[in-house]
């Protein structure tokens, strides 16, 4: 104890209420000294706040409101934890997250072509445009361009009177590049297009800019 001297079992029995006559003088002195220490300690204790009981019970009731299902997960999620994290790990996590977000595809690649972007700028309106080509000798004619992904079989044209091939297409507002494909092999520019531009492969692409009022040809 505090003074380094041991208390014998007789002293403990005395403190428990046994008659003191069974103790020697030395044991009684020890027991009295121990009793004095206990009283001094008890005197130093502050009285318990009467509201503490209610506060404790309220806390218990709150914890009891957590759903029983998945109790372990809920408890883990709703309980505060101490997470020892080194700042370098936080920086690495942030950098990795930023990298993933930056690299993640934002839109289909095809949706980034100029024509589609123009259409988006104009509210995604589309306008019907009629394509025509005079080719009396042709066996088949199709129109292929940026609006078909350059597929040659997407927009076959129909032969009309006097060998005039035609097709009407709903095109987004904006600029489009195209050519006619005659007999599935020959690429022919549209003589009525707004312009002919270098296609980068030694040929010419026809260009039309479709506005909300459509395409005007003389």
């Amino acid at each position, binding site marked *: 104890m505090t003074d380094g001297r041991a208390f014998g079992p007789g002293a403990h029995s005395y403190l428990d209420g046994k008659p003191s006559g069974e103790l020697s003088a030395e044991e009684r002195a020890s027991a009295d000294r121990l009793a004095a220490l206990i009283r001094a300690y008890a005197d130093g204790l502050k009285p318990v706040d009467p509201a503490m009981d209610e506060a404790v019970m309220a806390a218990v009731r709150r914890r009891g409101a957590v759903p029983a299902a998945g109790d372990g997960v809920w408890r883990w999620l709703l309980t505060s934890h101490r997470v020892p994290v080194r700042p370098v790990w936080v920086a690495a*996590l942030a950098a*990795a997250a930023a990298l993933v977000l930056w690299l*993640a595809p934002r839109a289909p690649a095809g949706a980034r072509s100029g024509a589609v972007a123009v259409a988006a*700028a104009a509210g995604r309106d589309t306008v019907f445009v009629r394509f025509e080509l005079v080719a009396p000798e042709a066996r088949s004619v199709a129109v292929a361009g940026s609006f078909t992904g350059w597929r040659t079989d997407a927009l076959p044209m129909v032969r009309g009177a006097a060998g005039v091939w035609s097709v009407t297409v709903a095109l987004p507002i904006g*600029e489009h590049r195209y050519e006619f494909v005659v007999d599935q092999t020959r690429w022919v520019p549209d003589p009525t297009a707004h312009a002919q531009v270098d296609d980068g492969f030694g040929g010419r692409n026809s260009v039309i800019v479709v506005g909300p009022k459509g*395409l005007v040809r003389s």
Partner: protein
Amino acid sequence: MSGRGVRWLVLAAVLCAPAVLAARQGSVVSRLSARGLPAALAREVQRIAADAAGQGVPPGPLADKAIEGWAKHVPPARIVSAVRLFAGRMAEAGAAVRSAGIQNPSGGVIAAAAEAMGGGLKAEEIRMVVRAAGAAEEASPGLSVAASLAAQGIGSKQAVTIVVDAMEHRRPMSQLLDLPSVARSMHDRGMSPGEIGERLLPHHRDAGGGEHHGDKNDRPPGVPPGPGHPSGPGHP
């Protein structure tokens, strides 16, 4: 969460990043392969796209250019050469667009600027159109119209002046997009490119001596509704 959990999370994120990168680059290859391009050609185009990505060039238009060449039965070597040239032009166009104030231009704006440069517009002229557009989404149509006018023989300086004036005066987008049709109809009536440019220039319009934009039907005078004019439901 324990420190070990955080470490696992970081490790997973770091491992995912290359996978996302590979998937993104792979999308070019998969697009080209789906269109029947040989694997070697697709890989070469992907390599060009990956290099160009460092300069902010989007891969989509490069893949489109390769697909166009393949559809036209162009030899692979020439396709690679054209794609590389287009990538360089897109990088230059992207730099011009950024220097005009659009810090993160979309792929559409860059592609439109690149096509315009291919049509003869200079970098400074690209910047003029982009600045006049104000909003990034309006730059693409402006660039396309300027390029189309230039391709019709109107000088690029004149074409840019016409477009910039229309944008700065906040003319409707319909009028702007109608300019190539108007120019074409003037050409078909026998006007020279120089005359057409003069007619479309602001001072000529303001003086009331030439082609106005907007009669009672909001159609420039003298422009007949040809066979291409939409007569059906124009805006489905």
